[in-house]
């Protein structure tokens, strides 16, 4: 379910970004709305690809919240920068040393996700990403694949997986 959602989000985001680029080819240049599909498409694409990578058994579990939060922060940051009136002028109020819109971009988009996403990754690592048992299963599956190739070598026109450390197989994806 999560993967389908992620794929739909990715396709929609790619179409939105393509539309933003295409609009720049219109006579008279990019219209005023051109940055909006890009501003909304980028967060959708990034969240989509993260969900695609993190989904396990069709679910993202506790990661749903950090993903939603990060997507909203990115989209809201870009939207506010586009929608708020320009207030950059001498004597303008500063927020942590920057004019409002610049502060939203630098602190909101540049720093907020750092506080959330890498920590969410670390805290959910065992349940959502990888365990020692997963590594062992993969190692055994790789060994089974290698044995299968060796067994089929007599009937396969391609060279079998070589045993020597330095030899390079002629089968794509198989290494010495």
């Amino acid at each position, binding site marked *: 379910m999560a993967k389908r959602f992620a*794929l739909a989000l990715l396709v929609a985001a790619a179409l939105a970004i393509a539309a933003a*680029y295409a609009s720049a080819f219109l006579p008279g240049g990019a219209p005023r709305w051109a940055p909006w599909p890009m501003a909304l498409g980028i967060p959708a694409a990034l969240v989509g690809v993260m969900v695609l990578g993190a989904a396990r058994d069709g679910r993202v579990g506790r990661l749903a919240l950090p993903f939603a939060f990060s997507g909203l922060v990115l989209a809201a940051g870009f939207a506010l920068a586009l929608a708020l009136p320009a207030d950059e002028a001498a004597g303008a109020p500063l927020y942590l040393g920057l004019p409002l819109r610049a502060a939203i971009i630098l602190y909101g988009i540049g720093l907020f996700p750092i506080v959330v996403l890498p920590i969410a990754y670390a805290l959910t690592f065992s349940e959502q990403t990888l365990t020692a048992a997963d590594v062992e299963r993969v190692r055994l*599956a790789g060994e089974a694949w290698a044995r299968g190739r060796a067994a089929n070598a007599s009937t396969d026109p391609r060279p079998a997986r070589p045993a020597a450390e330095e030899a390079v197989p002629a089968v794509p*994806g198989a*290494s*010495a």
Partner: protein
Amino acid sequence: MPAAQHWVIIAVAIAYFAIVVLISVWATRRTRTARDFFVAGHGIGLVALTVASVSTSVSGFAFIGGPGLIYTIGLGAMYIVLPASVTNVMGAWVLAKRMRLLGEARKLMTIPDAIGARYRSPLAQGLSGVAILIGILGYMATNALAMGVVIDAIFGVGMGWGIWIGMGVTLAYSVAGGILAGIYVDVFQGTLMAAASVLVFAAVLKVGGGLAGISGSILAHDPGFLSPWGKITPLAALSFFFVFGMGSLGQPQGVHKYYMLKDPLQLRWYPLLKTLGLILVLLLYFGVGVGVKSLVAGGRMPPLAAPDAATPTFLLRFTPVVLAALVFSGVAAATMSAVNSFINIAAAVVTHDLPVALGRKTKNELAWGRISTAVLAVAAALLAQLSGTMVAFLGIFGWGLFACTLVPALAIGLNWEGATKEGAIASIATGLAVTLTFETLNYFKAYTFPTGVTVSGLSLVLSILVFFAVSWLTRARAAEQIDPDVRLVMSV
């Protein structure tokens, strides 16, 4: 530059290179097989891999070109580095686990290896190898040129000799110690870069009167500089974010390192550590860019003759000479580190991926890896020296070419069982064709995209759409193209 200052800078640079040589000698003694040479024997620890990865990510651009770009176009240049808040953890979720597990299952060594394993396709493996080779050629030539400029600035030997001295040192440790030497040189260099960056940022804040003082000075003279898009259009700034955000998933110098981690379970803390490291290193990028603009706006510094002079001018005027010397040496080492990393990946393509794609074997891969490393280094140095402005052209499309050829086939394909080899091949071919055609037309001024549209952004989004469309059209064949062990890697 006063003579005393110059001698301190030379002394620090010599000490820096001496340490690089010592690390290389140590690494050479530990490099015995092709796997040691290309993926450090899958045996690098978490901290070393993180620091090396930060070091390779930034290259000399973060210290010289980046601050110059901010000085020129304002905050719009920040959209190149802002995605770092997301890209490291995104790479961890999307690629790190799958690549490392593929390495565990099949002992893979290269990125095209992973594409070949995923789709059981020599053509996809070979085509991605060709794309990587073309992109690397440009990157290596531009970095060779940058080495020449920096070494000439430190030692005054002329740019031609600078290129060959820099390439010679890099070649020595690349040929002998392979990626193992590169990783530990990167660790040394990345640590110094982070420390130097923090110190330079502190100096900027002190000289400029804090961030509020810097902003106040800029707003009084050039308010548009601190608008959220700087002096470029919102579409152009967002396009930077898209290309450097999504495109990060296709950068071989970063993705390749996932193979090297000793214990896959150590990935847990990798994104957090790498993101924090990158922020430290990028403080200089932002700080010097806005700091120099503020000093020029306030009349405390004359306008720069060229944007790339922002960092050297600030360092020589406002920081202790030892700190300036460390940054100069760091820039030289950063370009060497980038060349080492790229040269190693390119050598793997030549000795490993292309023969595999053609159904051939390379008998002594370590020896051929060393030979091709030397040949590629000499070719890059010659290209840098002989081709003039063409080098800049070659360097421009490297990032974009990697992004549009590898993001769909590798990053999406390793996470979606519905992807097909036909989709992968079509997307790689689309990325190659669009990038090479339009970058060439742009270089010769035969055709230029409208404002806000970049070749890299357009080719990335097109290759993603082609990947989805062709995979959907050929979806009936998707399931049969995945080996059981690869399917397991994709499902855990």
